[in-house]
Each structure stands twice: as structure tokens, then as C-alpha cells.
């Protein structure tokens, strides 16, 4: 039975990731290869970021004779990335899956349901381990013995994922309990998510100074991590080939996993079927303000965003990024532009910030999962007396209403702080705005071509859909295109000319996407 459940879980994951359609057509090989390429590209991008860290600290730690600390630090980084990636997936997979009731009604042991879902988390944890563990190994300047290799593989691809799954499941359980008891579940989930994200962003912002401190003074980290025996065992196991303690740690991890399974299986049914005990909100009869059908559709899309924390966090997080970037620039802008290592970049600083703003705009992805999110309620918009274009344009408007003001605010602050003038000033406002429009149109285009209604919770539709990945990567590619074009054509064209060329290209693509959506897009939606 467990085998069947595991297969179903993997099939469901693949179907959501690759956008299996309602018509149940077999996935084309090209589509699967394309998806695999996108996944590899994401992992390589993340791995490149971590490479920089290990490249800096590796030689310093080796010289200080603190090889064990290098790998202990890598273990902490791996575990943190796994946790950030898995904790909300654990909550959604374990306790909010829409097929829990169905599975619980069948002659299946609850622990098998639990194990099948945890297996998925384990697979994801392994995927998250790759972009940290591989760069850590690549940039270690020393050589590892055969026992060291074994210790590395056991530690990073068995012990850490197992412990991560346990912690993610327990944290997911706590978040679910807290949200279930609250009147406003979405708000609580959102707040907890933002706290997680805040901690993550704090460490990201501090990374540069942390790296400098680590490279200059590894003893500080030694004091901090030296008292954590498992980390010392992992570090020493890899560097010195002391396999025995790593094997002991593996046995302990397996025991902890088994114990956690036992605890979770005892509470699984109760937690997964809990209906919440939040106080009932009293209905007060009042006359509502009338809205036009179009305004009502936009309002509904806003409510959907507000009501689904996963959608808010994954789709609209970029809005927070852009606003935070604007505030940081306003406070620290002058200091940033007068940094001593930047004088040679001075002439390119203004165009680079335009590209940076375009990049930040790509992190706002609201239309790409918007069709999939209709899910089983797709009959509602289709049976209402509103045109298909009105339904689609409400989704576009949601994206634009949130993204454009944030981007324009950031552009205005950039213009003020970096004293933009002339053509570059125009491009500062025009390019990121058109880029936002492009992402909105592209997301809708992609989701109409690859809708997925087979998700078991909204997080799957928002996080893992192929349309989301394609939109993000194409958007990033287009944001980087002006830099590439300038590097190739700088002999013949000025930066401004490249910028205007890019603007023209983006406008042309927007027009083409708009025309496609009006004609073929509406027809595709009608046929869903």
C-alpha cells in the first residue's frame, strides 16, 4: 500500500510541476526535458550563490586548520536551506491536503499516508541539499579520504535530510495548530511566513559582513559551533575520515525519525481533520456598496491573494522586496554610490540600477498561477455574465495594480538618490514598468497554455507550476538581456540606445502577447 501511495505522490508532484492538462494528454518528452532544464538552471543559480561563500571561506579555514568547521558550517547552511524550502510544504502536504479525507476513509494505515507525504519532503530536502553541499565540496581546498567521502555523503544526503524532514513536519504541525485556532487563518499563516522570511532576509543582508568576519576570524564560529557535538562529528568525520561517529549520528537520526513518526501518526488524524476552534464571526446585516462587474472581479482577485498566504508569499513577495529596496536606497543610497570600489563602475551605475529594478520586478509573479488557482471553482467565472476577457484582464490588473506603483516608487527614489537625468531618467521609469507588464502578460499566456487543476492544495499551484518557473526564467533572461546586448554591442551602440532598443522589443512582445490573449487566450479559457 505504501508503494502505491508513494507512486501516487510522485505522479501528483510531476503532474503539478509539468502542468498536466485536464484533457489528460500524455506529457510530451520535450515538455519534460524543458522542465528538467529549468529545474537544473534554478539549482545551478542557487549553487553559484553558495559557491561564492565557500570560495571565500575555504582557504581561510584550511589555513587556520579548521577544516571540520568549514563542513560544519556547510551543514548548517544546507539544513537552513532545506528548512526554508520545506517547512511550509510540510504544513500544506501533511495537514492541508485536500485528499486527506479520501485517504483516511480507505483501509490505509495513517502512518502510511504520513510516510508517503514525508517521502516527498525527503526528496525535496535532497534537492535543496544539492546547491549547498556540492559547492562546499568543490571549493574545499583540501583532499578527502575514502572514509571522508563516505562521511560527507552520509551526513549531507542522509542525516541532514532525515532530521530536516522531522523538524519541518513538527514545525508544520505547530504552524497548522496555531492557524487552526485563529479566527483569521490566512493572516496567522502570513505572519508566521513573514517572520521566517524576515529572519532569512536578515541573514542574507548580513551575509557580506558575516563572510568577511568568518574569513578573518574563524575562531568566533568555532566557539559558536564547537559546542554542538553533532556538527563537530560531521565536520571531523568529513575532514579526518572519522566515520564511526557519523554512523552513530545516522543511527540517532533514524531513531529520532522513527520517534517523530510515532508521535505524528498518533496525532495525524486529529490534526488533519481538525476544523478549527476559532471564535465565530457574527454576521451584521448591512447594505453593501455596489461595484461594477469588472471592479467586482478585480476585488475578488484581491481577496484571493489576501486569502491564500501561499499566493501572497510566492506571488506578491516581490512587491515587498521592491518597496524595501526603495527604503534602503533612500536611507543608504548616497553611501552605496560613493563606495571606494565603485568608481570604475560610476558611468554604468545608473543603467545597472535600471536593470536591477527590472530584476526585482520579475519576483512579482501573480498571473502565472492565476488560472490554475481557479481549480474546481472554474465553473463560477464561466457561468457568470462577464466576458472572458474581463475575467482575464482582472488577473492582469491584479498584477499591475500591485507591481506598477511599487516599481514606480522605487524608480522615483532611485531618480532622486542617483540623480538621473535625460534619456536614462526616462528609461528608469519606462523599462521596469514595461517589464512588469511583460511579466503579467507572459504569466497569463503561460498559465493558459499550461493550466493545472490537479493540485491538492493551493501551495502546489502557486509554487510548483511550470508556468511560474517559465515566467520567472524568461523574465530574468529578458532583464539581463540589456547587459548582454551592451557587452556585445558597446562598440557600436550607447547604453541609452541599447535601453531604447530593449524598450522597443519589450513593447512589441507585450503587444503580441496582448493580441494573443485577446484572441487565442480567451478561446483557450473558454475551452477549459
Amino acid at each position, binding site marked *: 500500500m505504501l508503494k502505491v501511495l508513494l507512486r501516487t505522490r510522485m505522479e501528483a508532484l510531476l503532474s503539478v510541476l509539468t502542468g498536466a492538462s485536464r*484533457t489528460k494528454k500524455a506529457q510530451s518528452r520535450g515538455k519534460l526535458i524543458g522542465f528538467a532544464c529549468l529545474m537544473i538552471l534554478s539549482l545551478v543559480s542557487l549553487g553559484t550563490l553558495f559557491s561564492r561563500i565557500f570560495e571565500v571561506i575555504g582557504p581561510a579555514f584550511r589555513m587556520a586548520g579548521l577544516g571540520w568547521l568549514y563542513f560544519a558550517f556547510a551543514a548548517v547552511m544546507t539544513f537552513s536551506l532545506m528548512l526554508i524550502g520545506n517547512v511550509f510544504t510540510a504544513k500544506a502536504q501533511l495537514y492541508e491536503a485536500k485528499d486527506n479525507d479520501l485517504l483516511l476513509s480507505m483501509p490505509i494505515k495513517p502512518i502510511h499516508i504520513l510516510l508517503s507525504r514525508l517521502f516527498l519532503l525527503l526528496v525535496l530536502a535532497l534537492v535543496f541539499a544539492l546547491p549547498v553541499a556540492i559547492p562546499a565540496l568543490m571549493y574545499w581546498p583540501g583532499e578527502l579520504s575514502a572514509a571522508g567521502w563516505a562521511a560527507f555523503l552520509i551526513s549531507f544526503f542522509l542525516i541532514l535530510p532525515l532530521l530536516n524532514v522531522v523538524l519541518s513536519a513538527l514545525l508544520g504541525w505547530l504552524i497548522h495548530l496555531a492557524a487552526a485556532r485563529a479566527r483569521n*487563518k*490566512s493572516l496567522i499563516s502570513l505572519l508566521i511566513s513573514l517572520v521566517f522570511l524576515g529572519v532569512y532576509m536578515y541573514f542574507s543582508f548580513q551575509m557580506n559582513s558575516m563572510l568577511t568576519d568568518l574569513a578573518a576570524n574563524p575562531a568566533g564560529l568555532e566557539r559558536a559551533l564547537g559546542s554542538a557535538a553533532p556538527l563537530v562529528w560531521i565536520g571531523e568525520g568529513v575532514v579526518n575520515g572519522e566515520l564511526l561517529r557519523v554512523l552513530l549520528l545516522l543511527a540517532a537520526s533514524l531513531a529520532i525519525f522513527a520517534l517523530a513518526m510515532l508521535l505524528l501518526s498518533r496525532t495525524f488524524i486529529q490534526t488533519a481533520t481538525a*476544523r*478549527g476552534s476559532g471564535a*465565530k*464571526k*457574527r*454576521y*451584521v*446585516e*448591512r*447594505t*453593501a*456598496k*455596489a*461595484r*461594477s*462587474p469588472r*471592479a*467586482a*472581479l478585480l*476585488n*475578488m482577485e484581491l*481577496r*484571493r491573494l*489576501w*486569502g*491564500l498566504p501561499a499566493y501572497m508569499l510566492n506571488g506578491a513577495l516581490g512587491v515587498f522586496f521592491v518597496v524595501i529596496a526603495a527604503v534602503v536606497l533612500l536611507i543608504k543610497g548616497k553611501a552605496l554610490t560613493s563606495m571606494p570600489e565603485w568608481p570604475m563602475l560610476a558611468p554604468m551605475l545608473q543603467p545597472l540600477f535600471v536593470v536591477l529594478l527590472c530584476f526585482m520586478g520579475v519576483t512579482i509573479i501573480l498571473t502565472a498561477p492565476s488560472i490554475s488557482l481557479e*481549480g*474546481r*471553482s472554474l*465553473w*463560477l467565472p*464561466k*457561468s*457568470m*455574465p*462577464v*466576458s472572458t476577457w474581463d475575467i482575464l484582464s482582472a488577473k492582469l490588473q491584479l498584477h499591475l495594480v500591485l507591481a506598477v506603483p511599487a516599481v514606480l516608487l522605487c524608480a522615483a527614489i532611485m531618480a532622486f538618490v542617483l540623480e538621473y537625468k535625460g534619456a536614462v531618467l526616462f528609461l528608469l521609469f519606462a523599462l521596469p514598468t514595461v517589464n512588469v507588464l511583460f511579466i503579467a502578460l507572459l504569466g497569463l499566456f503561460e498559465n493558459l497554455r499550461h493550466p493545472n487543476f490537479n493540485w491538492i492544495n493551493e501551495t502546489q499551484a502557486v509554487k510548483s507550476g511550470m508556468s511560474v518557473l517559465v515566467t520567472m526564467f524568461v523574465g530574468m533572461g529578458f532583464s539581463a538581456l540589456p547587459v548582454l546586448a551592451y557587452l556585445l554591442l558597446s562598440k557600436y551602440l550607447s547604453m541609452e540606445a541599447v535601453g531604447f532598443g530593449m524598450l522597443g522589443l519589450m513593447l512589441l512582445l507585450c503587444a503580441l502577447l496582448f493580441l494573443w490573449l485577446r484572441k487565442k487566450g480567451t478561446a483557450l479559457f*473558454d*475551452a477549459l
Partner: protein
Amino acid sequence: MLQIQHLTKSYGDKKAVDDLSLHIAPGEIYGFIGHNGAGKTTTLKACAGILPFEEGQILIAGQDMKARPLDCKQQMAYIPDNPDLYEFMSGIRFLNFIGDVFRVEPTVRRERIHKYAQMLEIEGDLAQPLSAFSHGMKQKLALIAAWIHEPKLILMDEPFVGLDPKASHLLKALMHEHCDKGGAIFFSTHVLDVAEKLCDKVAIIKEGRLIASGSMQEVKGNASLEDVFLELEDEHA
């Protein structure tokens, strides 16, 4: 009120509805029966403008669904067999959303929500999020949403599933009231006793084809609807 002429709808190579023609006049409660997968839901969804169809014509109050879909939808309401509503909204927000889309004037909307929500005993729950509603409560909310703009035609797919006996009784009364005012109702059901007592006319569908239709008396004669249905099923096997 509803004219279905030579409707054909296929999923790939399979014809789900094959050359189906029906006429539902104002004031009629029209039952639609057939075994699972016979084509009832497909027909209802095509009439509601949810599913496109290849051949035939559907007219709602004289308007062609293909040519003027919005005008057709404005005059009718559809309730699916499984009321999957917007779970991120509260009950009252959902009803106001429907009121906005169908352009129901706010004071009229308020009166109707009050009337139907009180009648179906869910007025006190309207501020709750729909994710906290039971299946039956969602079904009741879908009924209020259908009645809120006083459509001429109401299409319902298995409307009695999930409703408690009192709500079922009230729904039957609402259906009669709607038809007495000149409206029409076209609904599918597997509960043949209910169809027999409630419907003025009935149609039986099998494998997408109409195998019998007409007034209840014409279709069943002196036998029970259940006997006639089973007999017809066997005849066309």
C-alpha cells in the same frame, strides 16, 4: 425559455451528448434523468455557457448562447452538483460578489439575502469563511446566489444532494414559487420519487441520446417513473 436544438458535444472521439433537442417553456419544472455518465451534466454545463459545443443551438429566452452568451447568462443561474465556491471569501462577500456581477441593486440584494438566508437558516453563518462551511451549507449558499438576481431560468445539477430534509422541502417550495412567477427550472436528479412528484415534464437520456421526453403523464403513464426508467434503460441497452 430554454430551447436545445440538435445539441452535440464530444470529448475527443466520444460523443457525450448526441443530437439532443428539448424545449422548456416558462412555468415548467423540467426533470432530467439518466444513469451516471449519460450526459446530463454536460448538457447542463453547455446550457449554462460553461462548456463549448460543436453542433446545435441553445436558446435562452430567445437569445442564442453562442451569439450572445452574456445576455443568456444574465437571465439564468446555474448550480453545479458540487458547490465549489470561492473558499477565500466569507458567505456574505460571496453573495455580494454575485450581486455585483449580476448588477443587483444593493438594497434589493440585501432584502433577498435576508429572505433566503433566513429561510435556509444560514443567516448567522454568513460572516464565516466558506472554507468553514459544510457541503450542505455551501449548497444552500449556492441556492441563494442563484436566486439573488431572480433569473428567468435556473439550471441545477443534482440540487438535492447534501441538503437536509427541511432544506430539500424549502427548495421544492422555492422551485414552485419561481415557476409560478413565470420562470423555468431544468434540473438533473437521480432521485426518481422527487422527480415524479415535482416535475411537470421529464427527459430521459442515455449515452448522450434522448430516449424519452414529455409531460410526466406522457412518459410514465400509469406506471411509476422508476419502472419506466428501468424499462427504457433495458430497451435501449
